[in-house]
């Protein structure tokens, strides 16, 4: 039941993280953007790390049935849960962005593959254009002797043929560049898919790690309960039945001299 509630809490928290902001914003990092989520991960991890490493020191200063012991374990457990939620949110958004990119690459690759013929036709047409302009110029050459005024259009054709040579060069370079682009897109699709698999695996391990910590804190809480029942069974029964005390907002050192 507790695990179900925790799961609900986690899903709700992740949903809230997405609902409060979109992925992309033109005005800088949005609440749901990767940089913002990364910041949240760092904060939650630091908070939990501090509480986790100090937990035993804090509990050791308390009597077994002191409600603060139970509260301290709960507090660390919640911090661990918050970190897990932050990590899951981060990697879920990363996964979505990665998937979107992979879909975009697939679309682009299919589009570019369909256009290979265009660039080949383009290059061969440019070649034919050079030949055409040269041939037209040649056909005027013999006429210039009889009608000198044709020298002007002949010069125009020479200039056009020069431009066509440049266009031909550009078309050939473009056909080659397009081939490289297709290779690059294929490589990108492969690396995008590899990254997607790695992100999905990361999401799985984040979930698994979160569950392990939850199980540990549940076991730690159970041990505290049994320790209390050994000392004061009545108090242990009250603790297990009653509401849990609110945890302290920040770790506080126990008063000196209050030892088990």
């Amino acid at each position, binding site marked *: 039941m507790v695990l179900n509630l925790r799961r609900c809490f986690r899903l709700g928290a992740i949903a809230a993280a997405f609902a409060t902001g979109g992925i992309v914003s033109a005005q800088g990092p949005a609440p749901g953007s990767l940089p913002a989520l990364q910041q949240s991960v760092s904060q939650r991890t630091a908070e939990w790390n501090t509480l986790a490493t100090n937990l035993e020191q804090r509990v050791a200063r308390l009597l077994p049935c002191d409600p603060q012991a139970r509260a301290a374990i709960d507090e660390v457990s919640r911090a661990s849960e918050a970190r897990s939620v932050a990590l899951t949110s981060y990697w879920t958004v990363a996964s979505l962005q990665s*998937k979107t990119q992979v879909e975009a690459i697939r679309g682009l690759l299919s589009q570019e593959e369909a256009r290979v013929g265009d660039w080949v036709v383009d290059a061969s*047409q440019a070649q034919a254009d050079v030949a055409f302009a040269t041939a037209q110029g040649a056909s005027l050459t013999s*006429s210039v002797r009889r009608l000198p005024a044709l020298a002007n259009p002949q010069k125009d054709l020479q200039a056009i043929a020069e431009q066509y040579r440049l266009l031909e060069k550009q078309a050939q370079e473009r056909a080659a560049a397009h081939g490289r*682009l297709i290779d690059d897109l294929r*490589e*990108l699709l492969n690396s995008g898919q590899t990254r997607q698999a790695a992100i999905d*695996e990361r999401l799985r391990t984040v979930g698994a790690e979160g569950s392990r910590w939850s199980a540990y804190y549940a076991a730690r809480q159970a*041990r505290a309960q049994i320790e209390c029942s050994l000392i004061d069974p009545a108090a242990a029964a009250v603790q297990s039945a009653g509401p849990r005390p609110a945890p302290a907002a920040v770790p506080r050192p126990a008063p000196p001299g209050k030892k088990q």
Partner: protein
Amino acid sequence: MKAPVAGLVAAGLALIVTAFAQSPPQDSSEAQQEAHRHWRETDPNLESDAISAGATLGARADKVAAEAAKYFSLRKDYLEGSAADARRGASLLEPVNITAEALPNLDRFLSSQDTFLKSTIDTIARNPDRAIQQLRAALDRERAAVAAIGTALNDSQKSQEAAAQSSRAAEQARAKASDEYQKLTASLQESAQLADKSGDDWAAYYRALSDAARGATAPVTSSGPPLPSTGRESAAVEPAKADASNAVPAPAARPLPPLPLVRYLGAWTYPTMGAHYHGMQPESADLVVREENGQASGTLTARFRLPAGSADNPVVRFDFAGAFGGTRAQRFAITNSSGVTGTLELIPGPAFNLLEVNFNTGDKPGTIRQGNFLLIKK
């Protein structure tokens, strides 16, 4: 979680679908090839008849020049469309910035917990008291949980490294492909400009050929079809050049857009949901497009969301006018009361009630100079 995630996936895919829907159609490539073929076949003997045809060559040259102009207009559109497509391609390859997490170092904590739990278990192991044995069972479970965390942390570390490494590799590949797209865009733009110049040069050539054939003295009124200057996008933007030596008359019949005019005309607005834009984000935009005798006119009013600290005027308002051309993307000249000039492009969207607006108003400081967004019909 499912609803927001599904929403994000749908939004991302919608962006991709929209982007691909805007790709230049295959038929624009075929159309320009067809125009090229038609130009070449219009009068293959023009040059060889230059000496014998005399003044009649003028009309023939005008006819060929008209076909050449059609071709170069389509050619330029094709190259510019392909350049825009390559730009869109590059813009779709947005980086996915995955940063390495700082993993907490809890080895010492886990190790000390394990040592403590083991030693406590050993201490009470032989105590037959039932309550103590319950404690021992709890300690065993706790110790097993600690061991499970150790395994999970190892897996976590490995998966984190794999994600970071594969992200770096993907980012390098993305940058490479994006760079190739940019080179392709630049090459296509260069070719489009050169094709435009070639079109002008061919027009000049046919005039020179015609002049030479008739002795370049007697004025000749062309009987051939007019140059389809409206087929060329630049013609709608730039005023026609007044050239006394140009015997080509003003256009009489204008090519119609390949899509019904209803795809451009009417009142359009920026949607409040599912908006798409590139560059500066609009807050609102309203466009009205009218048509009379093949001439478009209208008004665009838009307000943009400026970056923090920007002192630019967020409001853009201008009128535009020009002739409808024979292309899907219609380009018009824009003006406003502050003397801003530029161009406005209207491109029918993937659905009948969507229209892409792309404007550029030059370099006047303190104003929004570029905008690109999708409008929905009111």
